[in-house]
Protein backbone atom coordinates (compact mmCIF):
# COMPACT_ATOMS: atom_id res chain seq x y z
CA UNK A 1 0.00 0.00 0.00
CA UNK A 2 1.49 3.30 -1.03
CA UNK A 3 2.32 5.80 1.58
CA UNK A 4 2.62 8.95 -0.42
CA UNK A 5 0.93 10.66 -3.34
CA UNK A 6 1.39 9.28 -6.83
CA UNK A 7 3.06 11.49 -9.37
CA UNK A 8 0.30 12.42 -11.79
CA UNK A 9 0.60 15.09 -14.45
CA UNK A 10 1.64 18.02 -12.37
CA UNK A 11 2.39 21.64 -12.77
CA UNK A 12 5.40 21.37 -10.55
CA UNK A 13 6.89 19.43 -7.68
CA UNK A 14 4.51 20.90 -5.12
CA UNK A 15 1.09 20.29 -6.69
CA UNK A 16 -0.73 17.55 -8.54
CA UNK A 17 -3.52 17.67 -11.14
CA UNK A 18 -6.67 16.37 -9.55
CA UNK A 19 -9.72 15.46 -11.58
CA UNK A 20 -11.97 14.16 -8.86
CA UNK A 21 -12.59 13.82 -5.17
CA UNK A 22 -14.53 11.69 -2.75
CA UNK A 23 -16.67 12.07 0.31
CA UNK A 24 -15.80 9.39 2.83
CA UNK A 25 -18.39 8.14 5.31
CA UNK A 26 -15.81 7.53 7.99
CA UNK A 27 -18.04 5.69 10.44
CA UNK A 28 -19.30 3.27 7.77
CA UNK A 29 -15.78 2.02 7.13
CA UNK A 30 -14.64 -1.35 8.47
CA UNK A 31 -10.98 -0.81 7.74
CA UNK A 32 -10.65 -3.58 5.15
CA UNK A 33 -8.02 -1.79 3.04
CA UNK A 34 -9.52 -2.90 -0.29
CA UNK A 35 -9.78 0.67 -1.56
CA UNK A 36 -6.10 1.29 -0.95
CA UNK A 37 -5.01 -1.38 -3.40
CA UNK A 38 -7.81 -0.70 -5.83
CA UNK A 39 -7.03 2.97 -6.35
CA UNK A 40 -5.09 3.30 -9.66
CA UNK A 41 -3.28 6.58 -8.85
CA UNK A 42 -2.76 5.31 -5.27
CA UNK A 43 -4.19 8.40 -3.60
CA UNK A 44 -5.88 6.64 -0.72
CA UNK A 45 -3.98 5.90 2.48
CA UNK A 46 -5.26 4.33 5.66
CA UNK A 47 -4.94 6.15 8.96
CA UNK A 48 -2.30 4.66 11.19
CA UNK A 49 -3.50 5.79 14.60
CA UNK A 50 -6.86 7.40 14.17
CA UNK A 51 -9.93 5.15 14.27
CA UNK A 52 -13.60 5.76 13.65
CA UNK A 53 -16.51 5.42 16.07
CA UNK A 54 -16.51 1.62 15.59
CA UNK A 55 -12.78 1.29 16.18
CA UNK A 56 -11.70 0.80 12.57
CA UNK A 57 -8.97 2.69 10.69
CA UNK A 58 -10.31 4.45 7.64
CA UNK A 59 -8.98 5.93 4.37
CA UNK A 60 -7.67 9.44 3.81
CA UNK A 61 -7.50 11.11 0.39
CA UNK A 62 -4.39 12.68 -1.08
CA UNK A 63 -4.12 14.89 -4.14
CA UNK A 64 -4.35 13.31 -7.58
CA UNK A 65 -7.74 11.62 -7.52
CA UNK A 66 -9.09 10.94 -11.00
CA UNK A 67 -12.71 10.27 -10.05
CA UNK A 68 -12.46 6.79 -11.57
CA UNK A 69 -14.80 5.23 -8.95
CA UNK A 70 -12.58 2.23 -8.32
CA UNK A 71 -12.83 2.86 -4.59
CA UNK A 72 -16.61 3.06 -4.53
CA UNK A 73 -16.90 0.00 -6.74
CA UNK A 74 -14.61 -2.15 -4.59
CA UNK A 75 -15.80 -0.93 -1.19
CA UNK A 76 -18.03 -3.46 0.58
CA UNK A 77 -19.34 -0.88 3.01
CA UNK A 78 -20.55 1.91 0.74
CA UNK A 79 -18.10 4.38 2.22
CA UNK A 80 -17.43 6.52 -0.83
CA UNK A 81 -19.22 9.17 -2.76
CA UNK A 82 -17.25 10.12 -5.87
CA UNK A 83 -17.17 13.46 -7.64
CA UNK A 84 -15.56 14.60 -10.85
CA UNK A 85 -14.52 18.24 -11.13
CA UNK A 86 -15.88 20.13 -14.10
CA UNK A 87 -12.39 21.59 -14.46
CA UNK A 88 -9.46 19.66 -12.96
CA UNK A 89 -7.77 21.51 -10.13
CA UNK A 90 -4.26 21.68 -8.80
CA UNK A 91 -3.83 20.32 -5.32
CA UNK A 92 -0.79 21.19 -3.24
CA UNK A 93 1.25 18.25 -2.02
CA UNK A 94 4.12 17.66 0.38
Amino acid at each position, binding site marked *: *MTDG*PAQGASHGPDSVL*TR*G*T*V*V*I*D*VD*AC*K*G*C*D*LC*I*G*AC*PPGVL*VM*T*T*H*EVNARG*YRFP*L*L*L*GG*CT*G*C*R*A*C*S*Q*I*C*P*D*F*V*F*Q*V*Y*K*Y*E*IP*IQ*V*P*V*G
Partner: protein
Amino acid sequence: MKERETRRVIPTDAPPTAPARLVEDFTPDLIDVGAHHLCPGCGEPIAIRSVMEAVAELDLVRRTIAVFGIGCYTAFSNNLDVEVLQALHGRAPSVATGVKRARPDAIVITVQGDGDMVSEGLQEVLHTAARGENVTCIMLNNGVFGETGGHMTATTVLGQRTKTSLEGRDAVTHGRPILLADLVARLDGAAFVARCAVNSAGNVARTKKVILRALQTQASGAGFSLVEILTMCPTGWFVETAEAPDYLADSLATVHTGGVLKDFLATSPTSPSTTVP
Protein backbone atom coordinates in the same frame (compact mmCIF):
# COMPACT_ATOMS: atom_id res chain seq x y z
CA MET B 1 -6.45 15.35 13.46
CA LYS B 2 -2.71 15.77 13.60
CA GLU B 3 -2.20 12.92 11.18
CA ARG B 4 -4.34 14.52 8.53
CA GLU B 5 -2.55 17.86 8.76
CA THR B 6 0.96 16.48 8.31
CA ARG B 7 0.05 14.43 5.26
CA ARG B 8 -1.72 17.18 3.31
CA VAL B 9 -4.87 15.20 3.19
CA ILE B 10 -7.83 16.43 1.15
CA PRO B 11 -10.92 17.07 3.30
CA THR B 12 -13.48 14.35 2.55
CA ASP B 13 -16.26 15.07 4.97
CA ALA B 14 -18.35 17.19 2.60
CA PRO B 15 -18.95 17.50 -1.15
CA PRO B 16 -16.41 19.66 -3.04
CA THR B 17 -16.94 23.40 -3.26
CA ALA B 18 -15.45 23.71 -6.74
CA PRO B 19 -17.96 22.78 -9.46
CA ALA B 20 -18.15 19.01 -9.68
CA ARG B 21 -20.68 16.39 -10.56
CA LEU B 22 -21.53 13.32 -8.54
CA VAL B 23 -20.44 10.25 -10.47
CA GLU B 24 -21.13 7.64 -7.81
CA ASP B 25 -23.31 7.87 -4.73
CA PHE B 26 -22.69 5.94 -1.51
CA THR B 27 -25.16 3.27 -2.41
CA PRO B 28 -27.26 2.62 -5.46
CA ASP B 29 -30.86 3.69 -4.93
CA LEU B 30 -31.97 0.13 -4.50
CA ILE B 31 -29.78 -0.60 -1.49
CA ASP B 32 -31.66 0.82 1.45
CA VAL B 33 -29.17 1.03 4.26
CA GLY B 34 -25.52 1.89 4.41
CA ALA B 35 -24.47 -0.38 7.23
CA HIS B 36 -24.48 -4.15 7.20
CA HIS B 37 -22.73 -6.52 9.52
CA LEU B 38 -20.81 -8.65 7.05
CA CYS B 39 -17.08 -9.01 7.67
CA PRO B 40 -14.60 -6.32 6.68
CA GLY B 41 -13.41 -7.06 3.17
CA CYS B 42 -16.35 -9.31 2.26
CA GLY B 43 -16.92 -9.47 -1.47
CA GLU B 44 -20.63 -10.16 -1.28
CA PRO B 45 -21.84 -6.56 -0.84
CA ILE B 46 -19.74 -5.61 -3.86
CA ALA B 47 -21.51 -8.23 -5.94
CA ILE B 48 -24.94 -7.28 -4.62
CA ARG B 49 -24.23 -3.69 -5.53
CA SER B 50 -23.43 -4.71 -9.11
CA VAL B 51 -26.66 -6.68 -9.34
CA MET B 52 -28.75 -3.78 -8.09
CA GLU B 53 -27.01 -1.34 -10.39
CA ALA B 54 -27.66 -3.63 -13.34
CA VAL B 55 -31.35 -4.00 -12.48
CA ALA B 56 -31.69 -0.23 -12.26
CA GLU B 57 -29.73 0.38 -15.43
CA LEU B 58 -32.03 -1.85 -17.47
CA ASP B 59 -35.06 -0.20 -15.89
CA LEU B 60 -36.27 -3.51 -14.48
CA VAL B 61 -36.85 -2.30 -10.94
CA ARG B 62 -40.62 -2.50 -11.09
CA ARG B 63 -40.56 -5.98 -12.56
CA THR B 64 -37.91 -7.66 -10.44
CA ILE B 65 -38.46 -10.30 -7.80
CA ALA B 66 -35.29 -11.51 -6.11
CA VAL B 67 -35.31 -14.95 -4.49
CA PHE B 68 -32.68 -15.20 -1.78
CA GLY B 69 -30.96 -18.30 -0.53
CA ILE B 70 -29.39 -18.63 2.90
CA GLY B 71 -25.91 -17.42 3.61
CA CYS B 72 -24.16 -14.27 4.75
CA TYR B 73 -25.76 -12.43 1.85
CA THR B 74 -29.20 -13.12 3.35
CA ALA B 75 -28.45 -9.96 5.31
CA PHE B 76 -29.44 -8.12 2.17
CA SER B 77 -32.79 -9.84 1.75
CA ASN B 78 -34.62 -7.27 3.79
CA ASN B 79 -32.82 -4.06 2.88
CA LEU B 80 -33.11 -3.90 -0.89
CA ASP B 81 -35.72 -1.81 -2.58
CA VAL B 82 -36.79 -4.60 -4.90
CA GLU B 83 -39.37 -7.25 -4.05
CA VAL B 84 -37.74 -10.15 -2.26
CA LEU B 85 -38.84 -13.70 -1.57
CA GLN B 86 -36.79 -15.60 0.97
CA ALA B 87 -36.14 -19.25 0.17
CA LEU B 88 -34.38 -22.04 2.03
CA HIS B 89 -30.77 -23.09 1.67
CA GLY B 90 -30.34 -24.50 -1.82
CA ARG B 91 -33.97 -24.11 -2.77
CA ALA B 92 -34.12 -20.73 -4.49
CA PRO B 93 -34.17 -22.10 -8.05
CA SER B 94 -37.40 -24.08 -7.59
CA VAL B 95 -39.01 -21.15 -5.81
CA ALA B 96 -37.85 -18.86 -8.62
CA THR B 97 -39.36 -21.30 -11.11
CA GLY B 98 -42.72 -21.06 -9.36
CA VAL B 99 -42.57 -17.28 -9.34
CA LYS B 100 -41.64 -17.05 -13.01
CA ARG B 101 -44.19 -19.59 -14.18
CA ALA B 102 -46.92 -17.82 -12.25
CA ARG B 103 -45.72 -14.34 -13.31
CA PRO B 104 -43.90 -14.65 -16.63
CA ASP B 105 -43.53 -10.87 -16.95
CA ALA B 106 -41.52 -10.57 -13.76
CA ILE B 107 -37.73 -10.55 -13.92
CA VAL B 108 -36.80 -13.28 -11.48
CA ILE B 109 -33.31 -13.58 -10.07
CA THR B 110 -31.85 -15.76 -7.38
CA VAL B 111 -29.04 -14.75 -5.05
CA GLN B 112 -27.25 -17.75 -3.63
CA GLY B 113 -23.85 -18.67 -2.25
CA ASP B 114 -21.75 -21.58 -3.43
CA GLY B 115 -22.64 -23.66 -0.39
CA ASP B 116 -26.29 -22.94 -1.05
CA MET B 117 -26.30 -23.51 -4.80
CA VAL B 118 -23.64 -26.14 -5.38
CA SER B 119 -23.68 -28.13 -2.15
CA GLU B 120 -27.22 -28.16 -0.82
CA GLY B 121 -29.00 -27.13 -3.96
CA LEU B 122 -27.07 -28.69 -6.86
CA GLN B 123 -30.11 -30.60 -8.06
CA GLU B 124 -32.28 -27.52 -8.05
CA VAL B 125 -30.04 -25.32 -10.16
CA LEU B 126 -29.28 -28.09 -12.66
CA HIS B 127 -32.93 -28.91 -13.20
CA THR B 128 -33.91 -25.27 -13.43
CA ALA B 129 -31.19 -24.74 -16.04
CA ALA B 130 -32.11 -27.89 -17.93
CA ARG B 131 -35.71 -26.82 -18.10
CA GLY B 132 -34.51 -23.54 -19.54
CA GLU B 133 -36.49 -21.56 -17.00
CA ASN B 134 -36.25 -17.89 -17.84
CA VAL B 135 -34.69 -16.93 -14.55
CA THR B 136 -31.23 -15.59 -13.69
CA CYS B 137 -29.36 -17.41 -10.98
CA ILE B 138 -26.53 -15.51 -9.35
CA MET B 139 -23.98 -17.43 -7.33
CA LEU B 140 -21.70 -15.66 -4.90
CA ASN B 141 -18.79 -18.10 -4.84
CA ASN B 142 -16.21 -17.73 -2.10
CA GLY B 143 -15.43 -21.41 -1.79
CA VAL B 144 -16.70 -21.65 1.78
CA PHE B 145 -19.82 -21.80 3.90
CA GLY B 146 -19.26 -18.35 5.28
CA GLU B 147 -22.22 -17.96 7.55
CA THR B 148 -21.55 -21.08 9.57
CA GLY B 149 -17.94 -20.02 10.08
CA GLY B 150 -15.94 -21.16 7.06
CA HIS B 151 -16.48 -24.77 6.07
CA MET B 152 -15.79 -26.67 2.91
CA THR B 153 -18.32 -26.57 0.11
CA ALA B 154 -18.57 -28.31 -3.22
CA THR B 155 -16.57 -25.49 -4.82
CA THR B 156 -13.72 -25.32 -2.32
CA VAL B 157 -10.50 -25.77 -4.31
CA LEU B 158 -7.83 -28.38 -3.67
CA GLY B 159 -5.41 -27.15 -1.06
CA GLN B 160 -7.83 -24.63 0.36
CA ARG B 161 -7.86 -24.66 4.15
CA THR B 162 -11.27 -24.51 5.79
CA LYS B 163 -12.53 -25.61 9.17
CA THR B 164 -13.50 -28.99 7.70
CA SER B 165 -10.34 -29.30 5.59
CA LEU B 166 -7.77 -27.93 7.98
CA GLU B 167 -4.77 -29.33 6.12
CA GLY B 168 -6.17 -28.12 2.83
CA ARG B 169 -8.76 -29.83 0.64
CA ASP B 170 -7.38 -33.17 -0.44
CA ALA B 171 -8.72 -35.03 -3.46
CA VAL B 172 -8.62 -38.44 -1.80
CA THR B 173 -10.27 -37.42 1.46
CA HIS B 174 -12.55 -34.65 0.31
CA GLY B 175 -13.02 -35.15 -3.38
CA ARG B 176 -12.67 -32.48 -6.02
CA PRO B 177 -14.50 -29.22 -6.52
CA ILE B 178 -17.48 -28.85 -8.81
CA LEU B 179 -17.09 -26.15 -11.43
CA LEU B 180 -20.73 -25.22 -11.59
CA ALA B 181 -20.70 -22.71 -14.42
CA ASP B 182 -19.00 -25.27 -16.63
CA LEU B 183 -21.53 -27.92 -15.66
CA VAL B 184 -24.49 -25.66 -16.35
CA ALA B 185 -23.09 -24.44 -19.66
CA ARG B 186 -23.36 -28.01 -20.98
CA LEU B 187 -27.12 -28.02 -20.47
CA ASP B 188 -29.13 -27.08 -23.54
CA GLY B 189 -31.60 -25.11 -21.47
CA ALA B 190 -28.89 -22.72 -20.32
CA ALA B 191 -28.71 -19.67 -22.57
CA PHE B 192 -26.15 -17.50 -20.82
CA VAL B 193 -23.45 -18.65 -18.43
CA ALA B 194 -20.59 -16.53 -17.18
CA ARG B 195 -18.10 -16.45 -14.39
CA CYS B 196 -16.49 -13.28 -13.03
CA ALA B 197 -15.07 -11.83 -9.83
CA VAL B 198 -15.12 -8.75 -7.65
CA ASN B 199 -11.52 -8.71 -6.47
CA SER B 200 -10.57 -5.60 -8.44
CA ALA B 201 -12.34 -2.55 -9.79
CA GLY B 202 -11.78 -3.83 -13.30
CA ASN B 203 -13.34 -7.15 -12.45
CA VAL B 204 -16.26 -5.43 -10.78
CA ALA B 205 -16.90 -3.61 -14.05
CA ARG B 206 -16.74 -6.91 -15.94
CA THR B 207 -19.08 -8.46 -13.41
CA LYS B 208 -21.63 -5.77 -14.01
CA LYS B 209 -21.41 -6.32 -17.77
CA VAL B 210 -22.17 -10.02 -17.53
CA ILE B 211 -25.00 -9.42 -15.10
CA LEU B 212 -26.51 -7.00 -17.60
CA ARG B 213 -26.14 -9.61 -20.30
CA ALA B 214 -27.77 -12.26 -18.13
CA LEU B 215 -30.74 -10.02 -17.40
CA GLN B 216 -31.08 -9.21 -21.07
CA THR B 217 -31.08 -12.92 -21.79
CA GLN B 218 -33.93 -13.40 -19.36
CA ALA B 219 -35.87 -10.45 -20.68
CA SER B 220 -35.58 -11.76 -24.22
CA GLY B 221 -37.01 -15.12 -23.17
CA ALA B 222 -33.96 -17.00 -24.41
CA GLY B 223 -33.68 -19.29 -21.42
CA PHE B 224 -31.77 -19.83 -18.21
CA SER B 225 -28.91 -17.57 -17.22
CA LEU B 226 -26.24 -18.10 -14.58
CA VAL B 227 -23.67 -15.62 -13.33
CA GLU B 228 -21.08 -17.06 -10.99
CA ILE B 229 -19.31 -14.27 -9.09
CA LEU B 230 -16.14 -15.08 -7.18
CA THR B 231 -16.13 -13.05 -3.97
CA MET B 232 -13.57 -12.49 -1.24
CA CYS B 233 -14.02 -14.11 2.16
CA PRO B 234 -10.95 -13.18 4.20
CA THR B 235 -12.54 -14.65 7.32
CA GLY B 236 -13.25 -18.01 5.73
CA TRP B 237 -9.87 -18.04 3.98
CA PHE B 238 -7.83 -17.14 7.06
CA VAL B 239 -6.17 -14.24 5.20
CA GLU B 240 -5.82 -10.52 5.84
CA THR B 241 -8.53 -8.45 4.20
CA ALA B 242 -6.00 -6.66 1.98
CA GLU B 243 -4.59 -10.00 0.78
CA ALA B 244 -7.93 -11.52 -0.09
CA PRO B 245 -8.12 -10.14 -3.65
CA ASP B 246 -4.79 -11.74 -4.51
CA TYR B 247 -5.74 -14.95 -2.74
CA LEU B 248 -8.87 -15.09 -4.87
CA ALA B 249 -6.84 -14.58 -8.04
CA ASP B 250 -4.25 -17.18 -7.05
CA SER B 251 -6.57 -19.88 -5.78
CA LEU B 252 -10.28 -19.84 -6.63
CA ALA B 253 -9.90 -18.05 -9.92
CA THR B 254 -7.34 -20.52 -11.24
CA VAL B 255 -9.86 -23.34 -10.88
CA HIS B 256 -13.16 -21.52 -11.39
CA THR B 257 -11.87 -19.62 -14.37
CA GLY B 258 -13.44 -16.41 -15.54
CA GLY B 259 -15.15 -15.72 -18.79
CA VAL B 260 -18.37 -16.05 -20.70
CA LEU B 261 -18.96 -19.76 -21.16
CA LYS B 262 -22.15 -19.51 -23.16
CA ASP B 263 -24.05 -16.65 -24.74
CA PHE B 264 -27.08 -17.68 -26.69
CA LEU B 265 -27.94 -14.11 -27.67
CA ALA B 266 -24.53 -13.69 -29.24
CA THR B 267 -24.36 -16.98 -31.06
CA SER B 268 -27.91 -17.66 -32.15
CA PRO B 269 -28.42 -17.01 -35.85
CA THR B 270 -31.89 -15.65 -35.20
CA SER B 271 -30.86 -13.85 -32.06
CA PRO B 272 -33.60 -11.58 -30.76
CA SER B 273 -32.74 -7.99 -30.03
CA THR B 274 -30.67 -7.53 -26.93
CA THR B 275 -32.61 -4.50 -25.87
CA VAL B 276 -35.00 -5.17 -23.06
CA PRO B 277 -38.57 -5.39 -24.34
